[in-house]
């Protein structure tokens, strides 16, 4: 099975509401075999809820520096927890 493609967004220094707007635009382009990976200064509840509402699988975890890693995919075969770098 080929490696899934990571679509990455570093939103740590983006001002509100750019992280949410860019993330929504990115996840709409997702298909099989790829996933969205965002790092952010907070856990983006609106993004997570919007993504879940629209049928995506979501995983988020905070690292030891307080940075949140948020992974989103439409591909049910991907295990997001295993793809998270925390």
């Amino acid at each position, binding site marked *: 099975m080929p490696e899934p493609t990571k679509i990455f967004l570093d939103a740590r220094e983006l*001002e509100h509401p750019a992280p949410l707007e860019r993330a929504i635009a990115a996840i709409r382009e997702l298909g099989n075999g790829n996933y969205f990976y965002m790092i952010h200064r907070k856990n983006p509840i609106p993004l997570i809820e919007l993504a879940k509402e629209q049928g995506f699988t979501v995983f988020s975890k905070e690292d030891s520096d307080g940075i949140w890693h948020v992974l989103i995919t439409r591909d049910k075969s991907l295990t997001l927890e295993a793809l998270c770098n925390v």
Partner: protein
Amino acid sequence: MFSQNGLSLDQAPPISVVFRFFLSGSLFGVLTGAFVLYFGSDIFNADSTKALIVTHTLTLGVMLSFMLGALFQMLPVIAGIKLTSPVKKANLVQYPLVLGILSLLSAFYSGEPALFISASLLLGVTILGIASIMLKNLLALPNHSNSSKGMTIALGSLILLTLFALYLTGTLSGFFEGTFYGQIKTAHYSFGLFGWIALLIISISFQVIEMFYVTPPYPDFIGKSLPMRLFGLLLIGLVFGFFFANIWRIVDLFIIVFMLCYALMTLRRLSQRKRPIADATVWLWRLGMVLLVLSMAAMLTTRFYTLPPLNSLNYIFFAGFALSIVFAMFYKIVPFLTWFHLNAQGYFTAPMMHEVIHPKTAMKHLYIHLATLTAFLVSVYYAPVIYLAGSLLILSFGWMLWQIVHAWKLYIHTQKTGEKFEMTMPEVEG
């Protein structure tokens, strides 16, 4: 609009709840401009009925409307509070509020006791009712952020200043003798300007400046303790003011120091943003803070010198400060809410935020606002310019009115014609 975690879908109030308050706030803004045109530079005579009418149109009609709309939006976000039946509550607040304000303005103009009584009933029940509900929810929070703590105190101030207002209108309608009219009047506007308007802005900024604009946090002496100290000072003024009228001179000096510390720190924080580009909302925050500094400088000077124009300048600076922040929040909230609700409903064709209100449109409003402030300042020295100031004020709020109507039309249009996001999951191969 987001707290540490943000706005969750089930907590977000319907878009109409926020928009309706912004709409009535803008309409009262247009009315304020019309009053300025009608009354001319008499509005700068602080003891006149005309000044009283313009001040209350601005503080109750414009600011309270915008602040209630923002609170309906921000309480779920900042404090995780979900107000039950928000549409019903908004209706129960907005209609009596509008009627109460119109009744109060008519009462000021005519001196008719019956109008004072109807204004007291409508405004008293409405403001005390909604402020108590919000306060009760905030007090029940197990953990407070600096923002939610500040909001709690600001709402406490709103309740107190409303009670003072009821005493004042009760006196004007002949209900009370008014033995303490002077003391209560001083407490009413002090709690109104600093305990409510300034403190609510300060509390919201603890969240907004750090999060929207990605700045370092406020130091503890501002973030943690300023709201309580400010409220404590106002209480000292209130209690001791019954015995020593001069206590307010001392209290005001401390308030000036607190406000200056806050405004200068906010300007510093805005200069520490990670992104160098500033949009209209950043400039509005900067303008608001500069005006607050100027207002405090004017207030300080009036404590030592009797210079009549300084009182008028202080009035313009403080109103300019509060309106600048209201405008800054407006240009963040309206595009975001429109975009957020449409996305939450799954509309693939939802307009982007810059399509709801283009950044250039917000920038144009900033120029109109600057021109309005300049015209008001010039009119203190050259009275005929007041008519230009009044016209610009109407244009400024008319501009906002158009943005709300435009956003609402886009929202409805997308709901009627928009494509929904594909919810079904594709089959995964292998």
